[in-house]
């Protein structure tokens, strides 16, 4: 039997997302997917899911849902805490709630986005090989739209062996959660306002003072920030090369410089092509930090080489696969 929830209060912007849609970029279909891939993956891992299973991405708090059946869920992210029976539930842990439970998302001052995974993944149809919602074109996710009051979401019928064993343990011992948890902190750098970047192909289009300014000044996330990208306010950059860039592929994490010298960090729903010069791209391991930025937050950029960025990425992937291995070893008899 499938696990099921109903939405009592949907919150500001709640959508179903997975790790994105990469195979239709040539038709200008954006990647979409979870803005904070790390939190999305950790929520999935904590319930024994595949990393690519669909989660619900909540934006800020002020949302609530009801367990229509017994459910095994987990959450991760910085936009909200899960609140049940007058208690804050721990993140990055499997959580068992019996049918009828009401779970609220309450304010977390740190960030913006929180991911809710359910054992088996949220069951929505695949659109172009992904369950991610793309709101601009009304496709993917839950009926191509944001979640609304009274929506009923179900978990996938195929539940992994690890999920089944976690569920058994919690029910057998009458627990809401086990004593282990995944340490998200250990995967994140301490200084979260420091965003590491790799300089981009058009770096030479800017004057030296602007490049220094980019790497030393701080920038503030302004109100024009959403799933497509973040506009930053700060000292405008000056171009020394005035030529036009013919539109070419861009991808989440790229930092574009507009005609007026302002910076835009492209995020999950960004266009597949763009014509603004690219001064840098955010290291893949630091993109989850960007996903939690809200208007008014201040960041600064520090340069790393592309080789370092790749090494950090590969190390992160290694750490993430060890988490899955550890959970499997704990629950699956070999």
């Amino acid at each position: 039997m499938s696990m099921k929830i109903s939405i009592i209060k949907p919150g500001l912007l709640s959508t179903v997302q997975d790790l994105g849609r990469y195979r239709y970029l040539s038709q200008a279909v954006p990647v979409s997917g979870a803005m904070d891939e790390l939190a999305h993956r950790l929520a999935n891992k904590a319930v024994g899911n595949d990393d690519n299973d669909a989660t619900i991405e909540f934006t800020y708090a002020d949302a609530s849902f009801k367990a229509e059946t017994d459910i095994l869920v987990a959450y991760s992210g910085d936009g909200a805490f899960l609140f049940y029976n007058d208690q804050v539930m721990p993140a990055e842990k499997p959580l068992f709630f019996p049918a009828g439970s009401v779970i609220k998302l309450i304010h977390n001052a740190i960030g913006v986005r929180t991911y809710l995974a359910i054992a088996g993944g949220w069951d929505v149809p695949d659109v172009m090989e992904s369950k991610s919602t793309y709101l601009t074109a009304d496709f993917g996710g839950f009926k191509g739209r944001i979640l609304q009051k009274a929506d009923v979401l179900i978990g996938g019928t195929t539940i992994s062996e690890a999920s089944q064993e976690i569920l058994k343990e919690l029910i057998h011992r009458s627990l809401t959660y086990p004593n282990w948890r995944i340490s998200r902190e250990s995967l994140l750098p301490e200084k979260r306002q420091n965003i590491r970047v790799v300089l981009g192909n058009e770096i030479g289009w800017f004057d030296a003072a602007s490049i220094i300014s980019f790497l030393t000044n701080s920038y503030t996330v302004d109100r024009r920030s959403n799933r497509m990208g973040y506009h930053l306010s700060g000292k405008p950059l000056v171009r020394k090369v005035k030529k036009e860039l013919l539109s070419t592929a861009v991808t989440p994490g790229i930092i574009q410089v507009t005609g007026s010298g302002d910076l835009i960090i492209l995020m999950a729903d960004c266009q597949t092509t763009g014509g603004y010069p690219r001064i840098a791209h955010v290291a893949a391991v630091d993109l989850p930090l960007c996903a939690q930025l809200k208007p008014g937050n201040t960041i600064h950029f520090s340069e790393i080489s592309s080789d370092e960025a790749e090494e950090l990425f590969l190390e992160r992937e290694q750490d993430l696969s060890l988490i899955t291995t550890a959970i499997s070893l704990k629950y699956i008899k070999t």
Partner: protein
Amino acid sequence: MNEQLGCFETGIPIEIYGLSEKSVTITFGTAIDNDLLGLITDFNQLLLQNPFSGLISTVPAYTTLTVFFDPLSVMLSDLPGEVCFEKVSAHLNKIAQIKREKSKVIADNVVIPVCYDDDFGWDLSIVARTNKLTETEVIDIHTAGEYVVFMIGFVPGFAYMGGMDTRLSTPRKEVPNAKIPAGSVGIAGNQTGIYPMETPGGWQVIGRTPLKMFNVTRSQPSLLKGGDLVTFKAIGIDEFNACAEL
């Protein structure tokens, strides 16, 4: 790659730069050009027919082809190199040396019906005035031409088409429209394009097609793809309404 022979022995060298941890971009040239489009289209086809381990997808654009990959699979592959960029570049340089074949995917010829009535083509008068033409002349010139799809970008299914008669060239709007309806046919500079869905946009709108330019239920959701040849056919409002695709 043999520098002198260039890509496919055309003498055109390719340059590769890293775009992110998961992508590299190949630059084939610096200007919009039909021959370059052919080169990029053929390279893309050859790469997709001869993929490296970890290749996910490609994005052709005016002068570039961007290649997306899974770094973990690339690192496990036996391609020469220490880092993904070197390994992927090695494969791409090998592709550039393959004897060029005519594309297996033959570009389609697509006829797009357009209703140029004032209700749909609200900027027709601007295009006419800018180029000292009558509105009828604008429609005649627009439907007489054959257009080539350079790339799909901006939003799903939006085709950037070149080859427009320069007598219709009109700069894009200084202040974009907040809402351009799906199917709107526009002009920006020397290009023409069709808005697949309602979005903001700065192109001069001269008409509207009843065709669905992007439909997720089709096997190729975007009606057009890079390299396709397009002609426009003027239709009246009755015929537009009869094609109730939208």
